[in-house]
């Protein structure tokens, strides 16, 4: 009996050695020495690379982790699955790859986690390709200047702080000031205007109810078919929150690299930095300002640098980024806001005071800026918005004096009067992005003084009447204007047409 068993054993061993040869030798293995709060210390695995995936054999199956701290005596790894399953003494193996996520068209319309696993209850996602989560940004020669517009459909942004494809424009402001609303409207506009831009919304530690509402809205607006939602909630482990923006970017790069255009929305990078801070502190990395680790700038710079407009040789695709950062008490000089402001190509600052005054979107004209988008603005929009930003900033400064009323000179009064009308015009309801012709006609109607007889309270009604009239009576002209190539200049045919229609529309709303 025992002879038979020994023979069996020998046979098994031969088979194992044969299997071993197929796998190019013994597997590198280490052991978990400590585990807690989603972080494990691992002994052994001297050949592990930075960000390499590790497989921890637990009694309930394999749990993945990735190496972040490569120290002399041990590896610090963050666990991607349930850390409750991992215990000291578990064997750890090198997977031999860095972290990858599935990419491709198959992800469109889906809600996934940062590892590409479906969260929407839909079928498993089978893609033919996967991309590394961490990837080096395109070099200088592979890039091109930002020159194509990415229309948000929000009149105040498209006219004053235009965003180009490949640009990184920060949306910053306190909580409940409409940051996500701006991002959402931008996504909706891509579908309405049929721009072909793929939206990738990355929710970092957002309430799941908020993500569910957003997905419902995207479905209702018919935007979901060209959108991927990478979702992480507040109860997800910090490593997943940390990975979410990188995973989303990898998905976006797929479209960029094949000559398409994608829009990344990172909602929000403040929570991302907090998740990274948690991981870093647990990995015993030294804390710096606000307890963030020293490489928190690099955390965001390497992420946002992947958004780019590619050169013609590389297919001329683009990846535009709209990172969101939440401030506390409008303090844009805090650590993370200043970091991200310096990385991005401009910021849209949402003001609580404006929001509370009913000015929505509550965009601050003075503190917002777009550094490269001007080159991407369409001729039509550029022709009507030249001095809009300055005028509005001056008005908001002067508005403080308006309460003293009668002591103002006529020029100041006129400026305040025009500013009030403009402010009213720039108010825009959510989920109602405007096309190029609507924006041009609206701004020109105010700028030309055609609405000067309309009381401020009725400006929106007059604007609606104007747009309806123009679309009903001059559809062909508006379609041409919508192409964006035609300038709305003083005494031009299109300018006269808008002025004439605006004066006629205003008549119904005069006092």
């Amino acid at each position, binding site marked *: 009996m025992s002879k038979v068993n020994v023979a069996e054993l020998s046979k098994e*061993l031969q088979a*194992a*050695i044969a299997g071993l040869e197929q796998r190019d030798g*013994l597997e590198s*293995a280490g052991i978990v020495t400590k585990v807690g709060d989603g972080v494990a210390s691992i002994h052994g695995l001297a050949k592990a690379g930075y960000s390499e995936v590790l497989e921890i054999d637990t009694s309930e199956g394999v749990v993945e982790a990735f190496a972040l701290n490569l120290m*002399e*005596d041990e590896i610090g790894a963050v666990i991607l699955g349930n850390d409750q399953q991992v215990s000291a003494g578990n064997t750890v193996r090198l997977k031999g790859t860095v972290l990858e996520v599935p990419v491709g068209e198959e992800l469109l319309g889906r809600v996934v986690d940062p590892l590409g696993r479906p969260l929407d209850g839909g079928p498993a996602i089978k893609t033919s390709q996967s991309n590394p989560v961490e990837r080096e940004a395109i070099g200088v020669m592979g890039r091109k200047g930002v020159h194509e517009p990415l229309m948000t459909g929000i009149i105040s942004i498209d006219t004053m702080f235009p965003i180009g494809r490949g640009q990184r424009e920060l949306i910053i402001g306190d909580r409940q000031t409409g940051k996500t609303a701006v991002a959402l409207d931008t996504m909706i506009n891509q579908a309405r205007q049929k721009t072909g831009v793929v939206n990738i919304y990355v929710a970092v530690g957002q309430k799941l109810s908020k993500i569910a509402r957003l997905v419902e809205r995207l479905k209702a607006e018919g935007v979901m078919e060209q959108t991927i939602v990478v979702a992480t909630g507040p109860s997800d482990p910090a490593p997943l929150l940390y990975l979410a923006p990188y995973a989303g970017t990898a998905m976006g790069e797929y479209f960029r690299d094949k000559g398409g255009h994608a829009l990344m929305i990172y909602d929000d990078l403040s929570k991302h930095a907090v998740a990274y801070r948690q991981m870093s502190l647990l990995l015993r990395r030294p804390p710096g300002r606000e307890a963030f680790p020293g490489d928190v700038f690099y955390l965001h710079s390497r992420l946002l640098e992947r958004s780019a407009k590619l050169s013609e040789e590389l297919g001329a695709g683009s990846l535009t980024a709209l990172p969101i950062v939440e401030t506390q008490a409008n303090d844009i000089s805090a650590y993370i806001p200043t970091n991200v402001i310096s990385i991005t190509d401009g910021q849209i600052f949402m003001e609580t005071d404006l929001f509370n005054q009913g000015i929505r979107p509550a965009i601050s004209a003075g503190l917002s800026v777009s550094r490269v988008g001007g080159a991407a603005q369409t001729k039509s929009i550029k022709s009507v918005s030249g001095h809009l930003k300055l005028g509005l900033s001056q008005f908001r400064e002067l508005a403080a004096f308006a309460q003293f009323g009668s002591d103002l000179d006529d020029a100041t009064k006129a400026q305040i009067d025009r500013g009030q009308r403009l402010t009213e015009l720039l108010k825009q309801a959510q989920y109602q992005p405007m096309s190029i012709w609507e924006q041009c006609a609206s701004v020109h109607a105010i700028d030309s003084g055609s609405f000067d007889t309309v009381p401020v309270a009725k400006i929106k009604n007059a604007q609606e009447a104007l747009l309806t009239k123009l679309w009903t009576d001059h559809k062909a002209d508006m379609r041409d204007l919508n192409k964006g190539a035609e300038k709305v200049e003083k005494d031009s045919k299109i300018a006269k047409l808008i002025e004439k229609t605006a004066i006629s529309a205003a008549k119904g709303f005069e006092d």
Partner: protein
Amino acid sequence: MSTTISRRKLSQYAANELANGGSISDVALQLASYLDDTGRKSEAELLQRDIESALVEHGIVLVRTTSARALSGEAKNDIEVMIKHEFPGTKDVTIIELIDESVIAGVKIEVPGYRLDATVKAKLEKLKVA
């Protein structure tokens, strides 16, 4: 006041001493004193593993096998051949056998920093997870 020396350096020192014919008890005493002095006694087991890894570089390989029954001489010979193939320059292979009936059949081979689990138990667990 003693300074903190990494386990890697300690293990390299110990491996050098042992490979050059140093006394095991002397090296063990030195290490134990140092660990006690620096309050790192809990690292003794990890240090032992590190020393085993460092000894591989000196051609001394300690292999731990786990199987349901005792390994035959042929099997041990196969393991030695495999180790010498995997770690060129190996001069001395020491096999420490552990009998564990729960592995059912097959063998698990553990070399410092590496392993091969060819037990039936491991295969069944893989099937269970899949």
